[in-house]
């Protein structure tokens, strides 16, 4: 493992029950005309069934790219997975045939995106799009698929599902569209859901509704959930464990309670100190100096340390 700062040891290969998802030492790079950019630099994390792992990071930290590589939906070119393993129930997906990956995607692991409006096809009714999942993956008849679609919409608490099944995505509000996205992800009862900033585009009151729903469904189906976000508040509300990413690496993983109480990595500490709190009238916010910069050729274990805190410890005497 390249990152000395990742505290979690690689699981022993003789472990009897393999984790639901075990990402080991993943590397992803983007090859462009102007050079190669290292987006993910040896990321390792694991998720078990029924567990929620939050992957926290700012833009450019590689958190979304990692998820895309895991799902197998990385834009390639310019993105290339250059190393590592993605073990899904012990099977390395990176070595699997494209046809097998396609079957796993959707049926066994599903993804929820931030922008529901652009992730749904605007010219198909939501019922048709939900039903399509069953028609394609399970060879169901159209009429039965439509009935299943209504059932799904009920399950994600869309009011009057039966009468709205023929509506088009733009006729739903942002929160309802995100529910439809969740319904689509749930359709085939996958073992793992990756949610990439699922509530970032939503208003707080709607965000609360959607996160609540997601947490309920996860419990109900005992799914693994990877929640990718930049919001430390959302993470604190739902996650079991958290992995903090910075410049393509995981700088810290820990159980949720430990991370907020005793953040080990200076970057995590900086992040926690830099957010204004609803429950505190703070004074000056701590401002992290510098921003992640993924430059090729860097091999240091900790970019953050090199760039910003070498000369001084971030003050903690608030």
């Amino acid at each position, binding site marked *: 493992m390249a990152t000395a700062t990742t505290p979690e040891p690689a699981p022993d290969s003789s472990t009897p029950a393999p984790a639901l998802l075990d990402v080991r030492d993943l590397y992803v790079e*983007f090859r*462009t*005309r*102007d*050079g*190669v*950019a290292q*987006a993910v630099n040896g990321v390792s994390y694991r998720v078990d069934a029924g567990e929620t792992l939050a992957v926290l990071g*700012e*833009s*450019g930290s*590689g958190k*979304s*790219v990692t998820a895309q590589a895991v799902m197998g939906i990385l834009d390639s070119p*310019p993105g290339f997975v250059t190393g590592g393993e993605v073990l899904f129930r012990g099977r390395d997906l990176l070595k699997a045939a494209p046809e097998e990956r396609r079957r796993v995607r959707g049926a066994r692991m599903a993804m929820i995106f931030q922008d529901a409006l652009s992730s749904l096809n605007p010219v198909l009714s939501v019922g048709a799009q939900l039903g399509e999942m069953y028609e394609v993956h399970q060879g169901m008849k159209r009429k039965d698929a439509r009935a299943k679609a209504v059932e799904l919409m009920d399950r994600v608490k869309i009011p009057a599902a039966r009468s709205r099944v023929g509506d088009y995505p733009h006729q739903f509000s942002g929160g309802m569209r995100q529910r439809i996205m969740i319904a689509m992800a749930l359709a085939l009862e996958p073992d793992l859901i990756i949610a990439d900033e699922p509530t970032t585009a939503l208003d707080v009151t709607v965000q609360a509704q959607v996160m609540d729903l997601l947490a309920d469904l996860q419990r109900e189906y005992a799914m693994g959930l990877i929640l990718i976000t930049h919001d430390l508040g959302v993470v604190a509300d739902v996650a079991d464990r958290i992995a903090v990413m910075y410049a393509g690496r995981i700088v810290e993983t820990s159980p949720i309670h430990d991370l907020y109480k005793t953040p080990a990595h200076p970057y995590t500490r900086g992040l926690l100190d830099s957010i204004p709190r609803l429950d505190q009238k703070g004074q*000056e916010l*701590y*401002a992290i*100096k*510098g*921003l*992640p*910069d*993924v*430059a*090729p*050729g860097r091999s240091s274990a900790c970019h953050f340390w090199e760039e910003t805190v070498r000369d001084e410890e*971030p*003050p903690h005497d608030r």
Partner: protein
Amino acid sequence: MPEQYVPKEAVTHGDGGTTALAMAEAETLEGGRNGRGGSPRDKPRSLWGDAWRDLRRNPVFLVSALIILFLVVIAIWPELIADGNPYRADLAKAQEGSAPGHPFGFDTQGRDVYTRTVYGARASITVGICATAGAALLGSALGGLAGFFGGWWDALLSRVADIFFGIPVLLGGLVFLSVVTSKTVWPVVGFIVLLGWPQIARIARGSVVTAKQNDYVQAARALGASSGRLLLRHIAPNAVAPVIVVATIALGTYISLEATLSYLGAGLKPPTVSWGIDISTASTYIRNAPHMLLYPAGALSITVLAFIMLGDAVRDALDPKLR
């Protein structure tokens, strides 16, 4: 950023943010393009600078630009490469094939085809450039104002543009130009401008409407900037790229339109030397003397192609998203 500028208060903890390159872009391809690859750039670069850098490396651009440069030069100084007289006829040599000193042979009146092909560039290039300039100026002025001010002016202009779109080009050309007796290129230029401006106006209007909604235009308005300032300083520079692209591609089609009209007898008229006229004459004798058709038609095709290729290259450079 090559050097890290540290403001005074950054030494203590507080407001001290000087950062590397735009990180919001880091997860996209842009990030790589913006020079994250370890080569920070300090030279200020504008859109035009970026476009020029792209163009210089694009072989399509280089080839088409060279051809166009060559065409423009011989349009201005045809005697540089053809020392003959395009009007001198030697009926004894009518329709003869290539001979020493006359590589393209002779036409049906015994005039040198090579010389006429070279001199024909002038008419085509003049019509193409003047018509494009006229259509672009008229179209972007009208379309830009319509997009900026909106309202009834916009509605009126759009309807007028629709009417012009509805005119069949060739029929309109035959009718309009048949009543004109002038033997210069200007009636043809005028006709093409008349039919060409609505296309440019539409593009300019859409482009201005998009640019108008940008926050920086709102910011300038909030400062109290006048409409003229908003248009000239903020909107026009950000809206002009699509107009340039469309105009460059239109230039090629205008040249071929001129040739078509001339072929039909409605465009340029002798004694103007034009590829269209020569093609028209030659088509009657295509079985006996195909070379008479081949050379002017070839020159026309190359010219039109060069301009369309240039337009493509410019579009790629100015609007990378379209690629």
